[in-house]
């Protein structure tokens, strides 16, 4: 059970949160100009890497805010959290 730092509420136990997949995958600004392959890549393809990974979490049973977490997928270390609009380098 992770202890996740919500940037708004502080550290809380994992059951208060909902997972949202890889971070920084924006909904395309103009989907209609994308080819089927480009669109499918947005829909279905995500990184599955070992090491530091930026992912989205929602403090569903708390402030209900979405934010991002840097997690090491090899060690489960939670390196830091940052708000929507901030960059991974802002994680703390």
């Amino acid at each position, binding site marked *: *059970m*992770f202890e996740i730092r919500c940037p708004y509420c502080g550290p809380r136990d994992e059951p208060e949160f909902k997972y949202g997949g890889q971070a920084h995958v924006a909904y*395309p600004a103009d*989907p209609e100009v994308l080819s089927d392959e480009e669109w499918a890549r947005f*829909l279905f393809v995500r990184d599955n890497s070992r090491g530091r990974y930026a992912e989205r979490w*929602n403090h569903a049973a708390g402030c209900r*805010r979405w934010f991002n977490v840097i997690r090491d997928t090899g060690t489960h270390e939670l390196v830091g959290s940052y708000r929507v609009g901030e960059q991974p380098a802002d994680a703390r």
Partner: protein
Amino acid sequence: MKRLDDRGRIDHDHSFEFTYDGRTLTAHPGDTLASALLANGVDVIGTSVLMSRPRGVVTDNVTDPHALAQVGTGAVTEPLMRMNEVEVFAGFEAEGRLHQGLLPTERESTRFEKRFAHCDVLVVGAGPAGLSAALVAADAGARVILVDSQAHLGGALLGSEKLIDNQPAMRWVVDVEARLRANPDVTILTRTTAFNNGDQGAVALMERVTEHLPESEREGRAVRRMWQVRTHELVVATGATERPLVFADNDRPGVMLAAGVRGFLHRFGLVPEKLVVFTACDDAYRTAIDLAGAGVAVEMIVDVRKDPQGSLIKRARELGIEIRDNAAVIGTDGDADGVLTAVRVTSLDGGVPEAIACDCLAVSGGWDPLFDLHLHVSGGSRWNRKLVGFVPDGSLPGIRVTGSAAGIFGTAGCRRDGHVVGLVAAEATGHGTTADGPVAPEGHDANEGPTADFVDVPGTERIHAFVDQHRDVALAGVDRALGSGIHHVEHVKRYTLVGTGTEQGRTAKVNAGRLTARHFGLDFAEVGISNARPLAQPMTFGSLAGRSLGVRFDPVRTTSIHPWHVAHGAIFEDVGQWKRPWFFPQGSEDMDAAVLRECAAVREGVGMMDASTLGKIDVKGKDAGEFLDRLYTGVMSSLKPGRARYGVMCKADGMVMDDGVVLRLADDHFMATTTTGGAAGVLDWMEDFLQTEWPDLDVWLTSVTEQWATVAVVGPKAREVMAVLAPELDVTQDAFKFMQLEDAVVAGIESRVARISFSGELAFEINVPMTYGLALWEAVYAAGQPFGITPYGTESMHVLRAEKGYFIVGQETDGTVTPLDLGLDWMIADKEFVGRRSLRRSDMLRDDRKQLVGILPVDPKDRLPEGAQLIDSAEYEIPVPMIGHVTSSYESSAMGRTFGLALVRGGRNRIGETIYAPLADRTVAVEIVDPVIFDQEGARRDG
């Protein structure tokens, strides 16, 4: 074994009776089930799982491969309880079921509970290392929780005669305990097992609160309590466990682990008559020395090593104990019950075995450090050739392994290491500094010689030389696995079941791994052992569930009208967490009869339904219309205040996610309704886009599901009922049109009335604040009496909407169905919305996609089961291509026949064709029809 009155930590002055396998036995306060059985001469505690061989207690701790019992009877019985952990009391009952237990006959919610705790330093294990760590960390000011699985602190010191500072070690333990208990920031939990280590210091503990007490002394307290601790620093001081040696008939009752024999003396005052020690290490000499000191005849120490040296060997020699080096026990003899009477000793250079009479053989093959809590979070391990055991490899943030768990043997060494680790852990939490902390304790440990890397005795008979006594796996079984071509320890484990027992193969896994490595001529350091996964010790489901059983398992949501439904005999259906009336049977009606009656009432007169559970999301802000346009397939921003529109939303992949009616209350104010089960997900979905994709939009979302109660009045006579209820509201068609909202006083209650229909009939949905729900319902019921108003439930609602071809999210859709598949082309507005691009992916344009159609069984009385597959031909051979499936199937009172909805490949182009549903007992011919089967012209909507 026999009891010495002046030894052990039990209360010799008091005794009580308990029952084992129906026999009445006597024990003293402080006895475990294992010690009590040994004291009563119960050498055979049960038989083994495969070979039905007699088995006895092997050691004094939870690694014992078969000291497992069924404890308690009936509703409170628990299987596979560890005899060395279970404390007996007056009236205690147990049964010798070593491998297959019985489950309790009833669920109870009062015996187990849970709690949460936070601390700076959690120390697991209260032996010399753990106590030292806890003491320095607490003295530095850290909040400390110290846990130990035994009833008393001291760890291995409880089972020894060791000295600390020239005093009996237990005096030091008592002193440390007193200092810890005096510190208000220290919590000491005895009888508590740390069984799981999660991420970021989430450690699960199981405390045996009153399990060791008779019912009369439990005073309503829980039997066990699970603790979920979040700690900054975890100190793993869980000690080490002894492993056996492998030789023929090493499973006889009387063959025990050496430290266990010593433990039974020091903890319970139990000794055999005649002892032989068989060892590959120095530590077992302590057993010989201690038991000789207690007056036991120590016949011989058999040591596999050549000419062992060291202070313990010297001491044994001084006591006159015969030491046979370079020798092994190659077999054992027993009496008619199979209990040990003699061992056969042979030189490892060969020769004729010599029989030595004894009733106890104390065996030691060396020690395995125990550090499961480090392994649970992917900590590594490596084989230490010098120790002949696995030790932790590498370090993990916030986890420190100390003492013999880290391969540091010897009391002084453990105290020193624990001291240092405790200081470091406290400093890491901001308490004290290692730079000028207290000085580590002095002291020297006995000079011990190296442990021999020795598993099985050469030349021993292999059929009954057990590697895993719990699983009845002998050398011959391992031979068979290796001979069959298996060459990985994980495969050996699964083929033979070595190490898979409920005691988790603590005494078997390392030996099995070494045998595997040797067979292939490999280095054991490379081969390794099979993984140690959580839990570190099995826990019963009951104690993990705590009180979260029955109604406390998951919240139950009910509407304010619920008491009326209960009083009127509704049968309920679970929809998400909601209890919804499924149908309202009258008299002896079954479900089918009740549903036919309810549906007929709605189509011919008037019905009423509690629609309060529908999800309701308040959407406010100047961009609310724009926001909804981006999520729904249709346009919501063009709605006029006071009007409503049906909407569907898709996931990004274009699949239907949810649907509902959106009401516009004002220019900047909407209320979106969702399906009952989808409400939370839709709100999350909306929040996600609002916060992460379109934070620039001025929109505020609020769940108001539980703020409103909704009563639907439905049927041709609905207008007449409304006229009675709301005399000031003009309900004529011209004044109050379909999809229109009106604020009105209904039955004296300020209400929001909407003409929304989910049945195709004239319908009014009356929304009032939730607390007025029951009053409104009762008023509607009373006003409707002259018109025969009929309450109906979700089943009738499903039938009525299916007759009209209205799909239900989750029934007609399953995450693979697009709006186009449902024939909702008319709802796809010419604008961008989430998922729109997916609707023209090549896969979406296939003309053989499954599409929603109606189906009519050719036999109008035949009702298909929902989920039935559909095929093209009445004559078929398996395998037969499936072209679709039935999603809804009912009997219609309005049409006087059965009907259904189905998803069929290319179905819309096949209307009029006959296809088939192959069932187990018959094949049903069905005609494909338009999904709108009843009232195709929509004439009924306006009454």
